[in-house]
């Protein structure tokens, strides 16, 4: 009947989208997709809210007030498999992972020239995938330092097709996958002529910083220390030493000397974490933590801001326009921790003092050069990274027993707990199974 003649007539493509077969034709296409992956990170499931909420509100330095229902259930440890925020962080993380995996997979068949921009794009794609894998592994699997053989997240080496089956890897396998990606990112960045992107992208220093973070979480102190040092070397910034400088990091749009990488949100992107700290939000500091920060501490004015804290924003925009991902003090604290863990207390004390002295913290001038320095490093890390979504993850790898939900649950062994896989994922029948007996590790009122 000559039906093939009609095929042209019967082919209609939307004008606001392109077919998936046309998505990776040029280097610009790869870069556009990388920007899409970055943009995804700004969604409510990750840096727009939930990743920061998990890190802060589910641990012991911040708590939920009753002003709002935002993120309330998880903050008060009412956890179930159908929770919307658990679903959101799982779904958004895998969107980032899938979108970067598509860049990586399509690069293998890309026929065009591997220009410097192309290589920089791939370096970032690998780094982003490692970054997102790090968080799903840490939320849905046990800490590496607790049990590396426990079930972790799903490694997405190549994009998952609708006909594929998938399975959870062990936590150790997840970490190996992250390290492979970090190594790949570094290989691309090592190629001659590849540019180093600015602070809003996964630049060379940020990849080292990520490597340091991942290896620190694995307890691989010598390599974490080396990576952190490389990051500092590559970055070349300096610590802020006055309250004005520290405040300016948050309430102006000027770039600070401490920022290795910040996430740049667009003006139209929701940034609900900012609202969480507002007058009708849901977040507040635990008072005892706040009282550990003396008035002389240069961080004091920001934390004692009646609203928003680090998200007080610029004069122009209400919400802060960017969210820190890697900052210089984290690297010093990592180095100090690695030194302390290896029994090098003197060096650890010296490294810690770089941070404590710059901040005029309660520790400044009181740092012990013995094993007590580890506790001091943990305290300084808590004060320094408040509101940046780190505390939950640190507490778990340190296997701390903490008080959560504003002290309702005490001595909670948080390293034993991992969040349940979202019911929708398990019910889809593609092979991801629920963590056995995850409810047994929930906190209990003692």
């Amino acid at each position, binding site marked *: *009947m000559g039906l093939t003649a009609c095929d042209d007539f019967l082919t209609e493509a*939307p*004008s*606001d989208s392109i077919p998936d077969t046309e998505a990776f034709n040029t280097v610009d296409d790869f870069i556009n997709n990388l920007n*899409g*992956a970055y943009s995804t990170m700004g969604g409510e499931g990750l840096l727009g809210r939930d990743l920061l909420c998990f890190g802060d509100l589910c641990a012991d330095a911040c708590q939920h007030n009753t002003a709002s229902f935002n993120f309330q259930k998880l903050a008060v440890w009412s956890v179930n498999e159908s929770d919307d925020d658990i679903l959101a962080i799982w779904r958004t993380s895998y969107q980032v992972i899938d979108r970067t995996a598509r860049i990586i997979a399509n690069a293998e068949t890309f026929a065009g020239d591997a220009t410097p921009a192309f290589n920089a794009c791939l370096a970032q794609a690998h780094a982003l995938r490692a970054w997102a894998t790090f968080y799903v592994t840490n939320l849905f699997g046990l800490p590496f330092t607790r049990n590396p053989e426990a079930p972790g997240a799903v490694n997405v080496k190549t994009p998952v097709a609708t006909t594929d089956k998938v399975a959870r890897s062990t936590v150790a396998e997840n970490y190996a996958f992250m390290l492979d990606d970090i190594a790949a990112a570094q290989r691309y960045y090592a190629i001659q002529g590849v540019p180093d992107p600015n602070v809003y992208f996964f630049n060379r220093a940020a990849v080292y910083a990520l490597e340091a973070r991942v290896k620190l979480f694995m307890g691989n102190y010598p390599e974490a220390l080396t990576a952190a040092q490389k990051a500092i070397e590559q970055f070349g910034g300096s610590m802020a030493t006055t309250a004005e400088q520290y405040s300016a990091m948050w309430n102006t749009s000027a770039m600070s000397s401490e920022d290795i990488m910040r996430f*740049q949100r667009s003006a139209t992107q929701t940034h609900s974490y900012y609202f969480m700290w507002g007058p009708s939000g849901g977040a507040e500091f635990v008072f005892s933590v706040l009282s550990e920060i003396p008035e002389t501490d240069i961080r004091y004015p920001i934390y004692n801001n009646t609203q928003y804290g680090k998200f007080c924003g610029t004069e122009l925009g209400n919400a802060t326009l960017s969210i820190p991902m890697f900052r210089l003090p984290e690297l010093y604290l990592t180095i100090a921790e690695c030194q302390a863990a290896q029994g090098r207390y003197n060096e650890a004390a010296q490294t810690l003092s770089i941070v404590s002295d710059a901040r005029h913290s309660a520790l400044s001038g009181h740092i012990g050069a013995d094993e007590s320095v580890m506790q001091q490093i943990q305290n300084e890390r808590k004060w320094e990274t408040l509101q940046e979504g780190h505390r939950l993850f640190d507490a778990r790898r340190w296997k701390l027993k903490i008080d959560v939900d504003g002290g309702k649950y005490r001595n909670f062994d948080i390293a034993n707990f991992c969040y349940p896989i*979202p019911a*929708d994922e398990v019910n889809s029948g593609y092979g991801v199974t629920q963590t056995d007996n995850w409810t047994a590790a929930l906190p209990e009122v003692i």
Partner: protein
Amino acid sequence: MKSLRTILATYLIAGNGMIFAQISTVTGVVIAEEDAMPLTGATVMVKNTDVGTVTDIDGNFTITNLPPRSKTLVVSFVGMITQEVEITAGPMRISLRSNTEVLEEVVITGYGITRKAAFTGAAQVLDDKAVRKKSDANFLKSLEGSVAGFQMMNASGQPGAYAATTIRGTNSLNSGTEPLYVIDGVPMYTGNLGGMSFSNPSSAPTTGVNPITNMNANDIESVTVLKDATATSIYGARAANGVVVITTKRGKSGKARVNFSAKFGRTYLGQMDSNYDMLGLEQFKEIWIEGIQNGYAAGNITADQLKLYATQGEDLSNTCNAAAFGRAWGIAMFNADWDKVPDTDWIDLAIRSSRVQEYNVSVQGGTESVTYFASLGYYENGGIVVGSGLERYSGRLNLDARSGRAGYGAFINISLSDVDQIPISSSYTNPIVLAYDTRPIQPVYNEDGTYAMVKEGDYNLVALYDKQNGDIYNLKTLVTILNPYFTYRIMDGLNWKTNAGLTITETNSFNFRGMNNPSSYTSGQYSSMTGTKSNRRANTYSLTHTLNYDRKFNGLHNLNVILGQEMQKLTLAELYAEAKGYPYADVKELVNASTPVTARSNYQASTLVSWFSNFEYNYDNKYYLSSSFRYDGSSRFGKNNRWAPFWSFGGKYRLTQEPFMAEVSDVLSDLMIHASYGSVGNQDIGYYAAQGLYSYGYPYNSNPGAVPTQIENPDLKWETVAKFDIGFNANFFHRLNLDVDFYNQRTKDMIFNVPLTMTSGFSNVTKNVGEMENRGIETVMNIVAIRTNHFRWDISLTNTYNKNTIVAMATDDPIITNYNIQRPGSAVNTFYLKEWAGVDPATGEPLWYTNGAGSPTTTNINSAQQVALGQASPVYYGALGMNFAYKGFDFSFDVNYSGGNQVFNRGFQYDLHCGSYKLGPVSQYVYKNRWKQPGDQTDVPRFIWGGNTGAAQLSSRYLMDASYARIKNITLGYNLSAALCKILRTDHLRVYTSVDNLYTFTKKEFIGFDPQAKADGYVQWAYPVAATALFGINIGF
């Protein structure tokens, strides 16, 4: 047999007439063919002369001054086919056939015309008179009830409002459920192209006008609703939800005939449910004082506060959430300033009566080779709620020409509707919301005559729709239809036709948030006045070629074959812009605004290529067979399933043609049984649903970003509906016609979003997995109850019973919202609510069943489980119509009804609150029925200030039986006799008066304006159904 004898006799007499050519006087009688009753007032004219007369009361006529060489009489009568008869000597007996009978005899499928007798499928035809009867802007409302299986969900009574329509039930959950509309062979775009909401242009239209509303009912010759597989499968992938074929009027050769019709009258709120009225000042004060006392008893108010209320009312402002003005007057209400407190009836201010008028003029005529029909129409309906109203201008030119074997012509139709359409949502720009959410103590005007409340941030419905400075929600819809065609008679019985169609449906919406909208007033300035303009245009292009072979062999075998090919393209383009910061409300164009807010555009297209065939055969008008096949290729389907076959088989057996039935033929004049089976499709699955897509608009750090937005499913295809139909048609005594059809429609491969592992970057993929079933019985009965010389009484009864069941979904998990559930085994849109158990007579506390009726009750709504409670779509519906005619007078009424379903009024959480809405407006129902003392048996709990009993929360307290019967239309008319017409030099003249929607009977438990709701049974602050009283006149020259 009787009629055959009559014809035979007429023929013989006429034959004799040839012999006696020169006669000067002719006499005779004019009768109706179907019952041989004499026709009074029939016009009998000698052809091509002015000589003639009208028949007397017994149908007799005499013409004495017969001009020489007169050979032919022209006999005409309203509602009958005009006949030309040879003049004969002696008394002539002339029988006329009724017009409607002619219409009944054919079924227009859009691709061809089939004699109804030979049609094996299920279809129902409505003639022009039935279509014109309703005064509604949307002529489809005249089909409601009258056409079995045709169901409209009129969620809004607003003129021109979009109403979801289904034929034989809802056939899909996630794809389209609207029938296909075909006008003169050209498909019409009928999607909702309504206005877009402020700042959220990507959301569904908040208001809507059905482009079909642009159709002028006066241009319609007939409407045919095609239902089963035989009738619809030739439309293939678009026919799953049935097809509505509209045929417009064509020219007739002869002198130009001019028709003029006018209607004018008022539209108004026909009935107000006294339970749904709100309290005036006295009662408002009374119930709130009681509420405050109960609130004190319940501990919601301290003793100190109570004292303050009683003495000064001062502290009220701190504990009530009434808006600023309500607060101020609330204080006064409990104060000594009692006489200064306003008493405003906001419902009365929101609802009004308006003018309705319609004028239509048409000319019809032509020569043997060219005929024409041209019309102009104007319609206006002012609407019964402030801020609404509709005007429509329409014009049509239908041209047909013939030249030898070739025929050609064009249908041209342009119509413009201009609708002020108030928002129907729960927003404060809906005047009905404001009517129910503004307290009687709130004033319309300040003492200085300016509008009250606006500057304080409260909505004032009078101010909001102020002509000068108010809000505007305007939608203009321009529909242009160009439809040229060409035919060629290749040989006797073999005809070619090419039909081209272009329809352009364009909507231009302008929404303006004016000076009196409180959100325009910020920081002491009217700086936030906002305007949006949006333009949406749907173009459909179609080109159809058909070859038709229609022959009779040996006088016994009848064959009718159609082969065809068709191409179609649909494009949908939209443009939206929004700006704010107007200096005044007078300069409304966006260019006057200071700040652009947003702009966006979009374009979508789909194409369809089809081959089709239809085959009909009958033997001696006794055995009928038919079959059709269509092969559709659609751009919407996945690449592995681009082409879709659809087919049908049907058969019919006319028992009354058998010799053994001859004995009962006086009783059973006609009996046919028919059956059909086949498959049709639903391609309304989205424009690009099968494709894997990447989209932009995901920027990072001001650089463009792309993300995958849709995962490919190359196997995605149409939904298939397998339709089975069996039925019979019987005619008794030539007077009672009965059509009964049983149908079973099974939707297969229903589209669902099937969950996917999220590690793929997606949560779901669109797949063909679901199944649904609609089973039902349709009955249509037409009775000529009485027919005498001067009096006629006709009765029509239509009834449909439909049972819908979801058979399979993507997963076994039901889809639950906070008021309904979709699950296998239940009907689509089954209500799923916590079940209300009434009020505890001892305490006045609300009660709910913990797990449905029969389970223990609880006073804590959180302890109650949601349970399934009835369905949203009617189980049965239909109509009863009666026509009476006495001499020139006629009287008719039509009632339509529907039942077996429920309606859920979500707005009742505010309208029927029992004190939880502090100082909020209170309904009469709550006032009259509230629990006051132990022992009170009622369903309205105790009225408590700030009560947190949960009584206002969503539960089956707001679920009501939606059964109703509506007096849809009453008409009283008078046709001037032919003699009088002649004196007035008119062809015909009719005057009438009619009332639409005179009264609606509902169940006692029903509260509200109207039990009709959206397809999911949900209603809140809907635009009431209007009654319309009209006077009309039709004149023909």
